[in-house]
């Protein structure tokens, strides 16, 4: 039975569109891809990506994953660069409100599904939550090996020398590993995976995370996953290990020393301030006495 036959939920819900926009067969196809992705952590599963009412680059992969797993009892949070109220987040949240009528929230702890672009929330995720990443470039070796037939073979045979060529180049030219986002990781000791353009500050949060992590790339037509409590190891050299960035100052709004900070330019005189990129985390800390 189609789900929209029994819907009588939110007044925001548009009754002329199937639940979560995609038709039921498409959702089933995407769910099959997701199941396969969960079974082989870090492996990129091809899927029949659909045309969405948003352009590529706006998170069509993540939207399709969310649309396939969302149910009426879910609570959705959407963030873009850590914030709940930037354009991309507002648009996607409104899209799901209109097509599903589910409850939406900005509270990380209250959400059952979190769709994200560029960040993992500062508040630790828990079991039962799902975080959906929007991925522009799923193939971590694409820059050095543009042939997809070849990269697939490299994954299959676990020939990952290329990834270190990339890091070697950074060290040769800058003396340190200059990649600060989309920093490649080894999942479950087997597949090298691109974690989407999250800052490398967030990489350690993926390791043994209790939540299910799903990745969708709409244009590239790939889905991959990190199941709960899976090892995720950032690459590095023995004498130049992986490290995350740090800041001189604390957040000027909530005083946190542990969060990822955005540099905000205040005027044309060069005045600037550092604030948390995770707006929910920052505002909750400000509310507390």
């Amino acid at each position: 039975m189609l789900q929209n036959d029994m819907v009588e939920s939110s007044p925001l819900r548009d009754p002329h569109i199937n639940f979560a926009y995609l038709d039921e067969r498409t959702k089933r196809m995407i769910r099959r891809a997701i199941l396969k992705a969960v079974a082989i952590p870090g492996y990129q599963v091809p899927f029949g990506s659909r045309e969405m009412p948003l352009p590529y680059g706006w998170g069509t992969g993540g939207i399709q994953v969310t649309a396939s797993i969302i149910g009426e009892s879910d609570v959705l949070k959407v963030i873009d660069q850590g914030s709940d109220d930037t354009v991309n987040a507002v648009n996607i949240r409104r899209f799901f409100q209109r097509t599903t009528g589910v409850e939406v929230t900005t509270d990380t702890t209250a959400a059952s599904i979190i769709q994200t672009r560029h960040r993992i929330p500062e508040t630790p995720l828990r079991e039962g939550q799902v975080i959906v990443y929007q991925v522009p470039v799923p193939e971590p070796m694409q820059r050095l090996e543009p042939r997809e037939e070849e990269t697939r073979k490299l994954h299959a045979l676990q020939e990952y020398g290329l990834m270190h060529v990339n890091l070697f180049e950074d060290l040769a030219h800058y003396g340190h590993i200059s990649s600060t986002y989309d920093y490649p990781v080894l999942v479950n000791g087997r597949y090298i995976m691109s974690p989407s353009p999250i800052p490398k500050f967030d990489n350690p949060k993926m390791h043994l995370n209790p939540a299910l992590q799903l990745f969708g790339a709409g244009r590239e037509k790939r889905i991959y996953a990190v199941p709960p409590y899976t090892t995720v190891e950032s690459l590095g050299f023995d004498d130049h290990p992986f490290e995350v960035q740090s800041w001189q100052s604390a957040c000027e709004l909530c005083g946190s020393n542990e969060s990822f900070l955005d540099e905000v330019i205040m005027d044309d005189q060069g005045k600037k301030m550092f604030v948390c990129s995770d707006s929910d985390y920052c505002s909750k800390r400000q509310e507390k006495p």
Partner: protein
Amino acid sequence: MMDFDTKPPLMRVHGLSCAYGSRTVVRDISFDLWPGEVLAIVGESGSGKTTLLNAVAARHTPSAGQVSFDLRDHGLQEIYGMSEAQRRMLARTDWGFVHQNAADGLRMNVSAGANVSERLMALGQRHYGQLRAQAIDWLERVEISPSRIDDRPNTFSGGMRQRLQIARNLITQPRLVFMDEPTSGLDVSVQAKLLDMMRTLTRQMNLAAIIVTHDLAVARLLAQRMMVMQNGEAVETGLTDQLLDDPQHPYTQLLVSSVLQP
């Protein structure tokens, strides 16, 4: 010299044929290659030299025949009977492949140092300092200034690129190198320098090589043994000096007499 009775050859090629569709371009080639030996395959364009080289280097599946290689711990093994993973492993550890056009064998958009140490990283070396030290050592051995280690190969001259390609292949201490016209496209003085360097390296490392060339001088300088090909068949095989000074087959005679004397 070598004890030919007890030791197996490094590579044994038996009855090798290659076809593109219904057209056979390499017909029934057999030879043994011994450790440290340099074999030159000469012949005119279209005689099947490069196809033969690709077939013995596991880059083009032959239509008939066997190619066996002496693995360090398993003895002679048929290379097309191995799994693809084993074959690729062999190709980047115990073998090297030097392309005619250096851009085909190098990563032009990463530094010389990364090019040279890529094979070591593929083998799991993860210490940047040590990787770099080995890269510098090899750049010196192929006479490239270590100050160029962070430069990209597209800033290098043709001769330097070719030497860099050789360093990139030899860093894992292979036992066999395949070379496809390694000196064509270089001017004569650069050719001479490269040949001199290759001769030194093959001697030092007891490195066997199969060199495809149309230049008889390259064969004379580097190779102990030579195979002359015409229309996909080996028309004459023998010691290089013997073959060049006293050619028996009419085609070899033609080839030797066609060389211009300055």
